[in-house]
């Protein structure tokens, strides 16, 4: 039932860029392996090679001692290797059963054998504990149910090795528990599992051993029980984690720069109030779905509000769209950089000046004036890359710096950053933290929404924790700790699950 995988000297190049540099390690049968590494460490690429989505540039992949070459993911599936994608790959408009057999339909002659497929689907779904309707559309499922469908689908293909990429990214604690139970059962059945996650508490809880990658190389492997979280983090980052954050400077005391009172965004945020002072870095913590992003989209006028007031510099403002927010000194950089932050297909210059084109138009646009703004931003924010290329040619960290520069062009008094270091490598992360501190030192109010608790703890003067659409706590700097934030984020009744 189980299978043994060996990577040997695997390299992978995309064009001139080498993302894997001779990776070699084994995956032992029937164990849960935590695969750790920063974004860009090469974990996903390596797993895509294992699952047949990419071919290695050089090196050998062996299954049960025999070298194999997968031409596509079907080849890998035939050997029992299935990758469950980060962004689930189900067709929303098809039913659960139809999805499970997509591309592998059972036929009778020319026609589909719906009854046989349904029977087998029901059986597989029962095994993973899916309680929904096998004939219901996938569109109507919640994320956790979709995940179960994906796993059931893998079971149908007789998966012997299951790769899970950030499976808990949008699950609630109780859904996570159910998933972990299922992983336990799969392990007992002899299925080999590769578990990719940034959440070290989960890795600690369910994996047998951890494998760490960094910069496209294998770094270390160790039994999970012998590796404390701090050590895992240091292996991933490759240095001590002490100099990542700038020193905190105390913000001005006095009149708030921005005051929000009783703001309600129906379905997402209820009765939220907070103050932001000049020079302050205010954090927003909470689980996915706690309503943080939606709260600020509501403040910006991108979602309907049903109550509450916003004051900026003492003036009450009614913001109906991002333009009015910008005019009142508030800009917001979304967590979804490619979908809401940058035009990745457009040039750096066009991206940078989009919000302030009027400054460069008299009335015709002056490319020279735009170019000067770009030069200034490149120097001031340390954006590295070809200034004449498109935004997509930049690395994640440099894209993020460009995005920050773009939303600072209007010179906002209040700057909101949503997940400012998502998809950004360690070096750029540090740059961004220091940049945020600089903005606050200039007297701006900065709001940081983040799922990385370490980042909130290292950076913020105060952190507001949201749980289930409401503010559950405001934690001052001297009481900031992971335990404190998690307890408020998930409520104490389930906090025992995340503590050890």
């Amino acid at each position, binding site marked *: 039932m189980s299978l043994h995988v060996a990577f040997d000297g695997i390299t*992978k190049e*995309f*064009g*001139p*860029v*080498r*993302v894997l*540099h001779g990776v070699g390690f084994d995956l032992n049968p029937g164990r849960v392996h935590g695969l750790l590494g920063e974004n*860009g460490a*090469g974990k*996903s*690429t390596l797993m895509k090679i294992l699952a047949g989505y990419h071919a290695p540039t050089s090196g050998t992949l062996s299954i049960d001692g025999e070298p194999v070459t997968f031409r596509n993911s079907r080849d890998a599936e035939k050997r029992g290797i299935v990758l469950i994608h980060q962004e689930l790959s189900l067709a929303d408009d098809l039913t659960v059963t139809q999805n499970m057999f997509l591309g592998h339909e059972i036929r009778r002659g020319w026609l589909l054998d719906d009854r046989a497929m349904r029977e087998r689907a029901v059986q597989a779904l029962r095994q993973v504990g899916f309680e929904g309707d096998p004939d219901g559309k996938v569109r109507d499922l919640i994320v956790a149910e979709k995940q179960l469908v994906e796993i059931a689908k893998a079971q149908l293909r007789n998966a012997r090795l299951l790769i899970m990429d950030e499976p808990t990214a949008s699950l609630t604690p109780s859904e996570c528990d159910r998933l972990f139970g299922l992983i336990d059962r799969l392990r007992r059945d002899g299925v080999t599992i590769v578990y990719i996650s940034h959440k070290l508490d989960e890795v600690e809880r369910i994996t047998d051993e951890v494998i760490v990658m*960094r*910069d*496209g190389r294998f770094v270390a492997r160790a039994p999970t029980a012998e590796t404390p979280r701090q050590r895992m983090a240091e292996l991933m980052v*490759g240095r001590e984690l002490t100099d990542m954050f700038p020193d905190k400077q105390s913000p001005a005391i006095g009149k708030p720069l921005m005051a929000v009172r009783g703001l309600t965004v129906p379905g997402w945020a209820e009765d939220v109030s907070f103050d932001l002072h000049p020079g302050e870095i205010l954090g927003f913590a909470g689980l996915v779905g706690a309503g943080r992003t939606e709260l600020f989209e509501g403040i910006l006028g*991108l979602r309907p509000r049903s109550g509450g007031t916003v004051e900026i510099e003492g003036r009450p403002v009614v913001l109906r*769209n*991002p*333009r009015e*927010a*910008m005019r009142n000194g508030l*800009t*917001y950089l*979304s967590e979804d950089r490619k*979908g*809401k*932050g*940058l*035009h*990745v*297909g*457009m040039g750096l210059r*066009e991206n940078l000046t*989009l*919000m302030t*084109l*009027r400054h*460069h*138009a008299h*009335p*015709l*646009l002056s490319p020279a004036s735009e170019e000067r703004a770009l030069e200034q931003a490149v120097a001031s924010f340390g954006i*590295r*890359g*070809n200034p*004449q*290329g498109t935004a997509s*040619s930049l*690395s*994640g960290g440099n894209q993020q710096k460009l995005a920050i520069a*773009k*939303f600072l062009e*209007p010179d906002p008094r209040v700057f909101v950053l949503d997940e400012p270091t998502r*998809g950004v*490598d*360690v*070096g750029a992360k540090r740059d961004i933290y220091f940049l945020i501190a600089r903005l606050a030192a200039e007297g701006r109010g900065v709001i940081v929404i983040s799922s990385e608790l370490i980042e909130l703890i290292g950076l913020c003067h105060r952190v507001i924790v949201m749980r289930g659409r409401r503010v559950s706590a405001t934690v001052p700097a001297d009481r900031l700790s992971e335990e404190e934030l998690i307890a408020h984020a998930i409520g104490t009744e389930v906090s025992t699950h995340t503590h050890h």
Partner: protein
Amino acid sequence: MPSGPKSAPTPTTEARGDRAAPRKASRRFDPHRFGPVVGLVLLLVVGTALNPDFATWDNMMNVLTRTAFIGIISIGMCFVIISGGIDLSVGSMAALIAGGMILLMNALAGSVGSPVAVVALGMLFALLLGGGFGLAHGYLITRGRIEPFIVTLGTLGIFRAVLTWLADGGAITLDNDLSDAYGPVYYGSLLGIPVPVWVFLAVSVAGAVLLNRTAFGRYVQAIGSNEQVARFAAVDVDRVKLLTYGLLGVCVGIATVLYVPRLGSASPTTGLLWELEAIAAVIVGGTSFKGGEGRIAGTVIGAVLLSVISNILNLTSIISVYLNAAVQGCVIIAVAFLQRRRP
């Protein structure tokens, strides 16, 4: 997403340099930019070889004059398509504007003394009507949140049906003395170049400046490239979209103003299939159908290229004129094939 190695800064820079070099080179031979030009040059060579009358000044001016209507509309269409929209109604809109302005001019002929003043009022009316129709489209699309394809598919039927009803199934004809006063707008020329060609040129230049050198043009591209990003970047997406449809309406108005004196009448077949020719000109000119990027110069060349094809078929007898649309269709598909993006 894989990204470059990070441990050593030097290889990163090298990798980036390597990546930038082929990118630049490939842009230089970008088929989007030069495909239509090469196609047009080839056609001109073929036309000259097949018929000595082809490469004459008169024939060239004739081709450009006929291109002017579709060409002017396709400039406006270019903005709409770059912003991610579409307008299927322009042919019907042109017909209704033509009928409406003729009816108005005929009615005014009695009360306003000077035919020239009547014609001027008629032209103004045509532009206003076109702009109004376009803004109505834009309003339904932005505020009404209806797909542009559906809105303009609806008005495509409405405009032509209203014209047919106004014309009682026949033609609406301009009074004779008004025709004489109006004639020079189509038949006249300045410095040896026909008036419609001048207007086409002016609209093209204005369109290119508007698209490439104004904030509005940048917003149009930004919205077509990613509407959501533009919205978060404080761009007034609805207003910009509304204006692109208004702009296209005005372009249709201008084209109609040039077209009416040619025949002096409007009928249910006026402007038939112009929408497809205008869209074809934009696409052949290298503008992405998905929006986000496009070129006015390419659009002009696309429009000229399509009418050169029919001109060559008219002048030569190798392929029947009846197959004109078929040849144009083949060219459109061939150009699209050459411009397709690697997946």
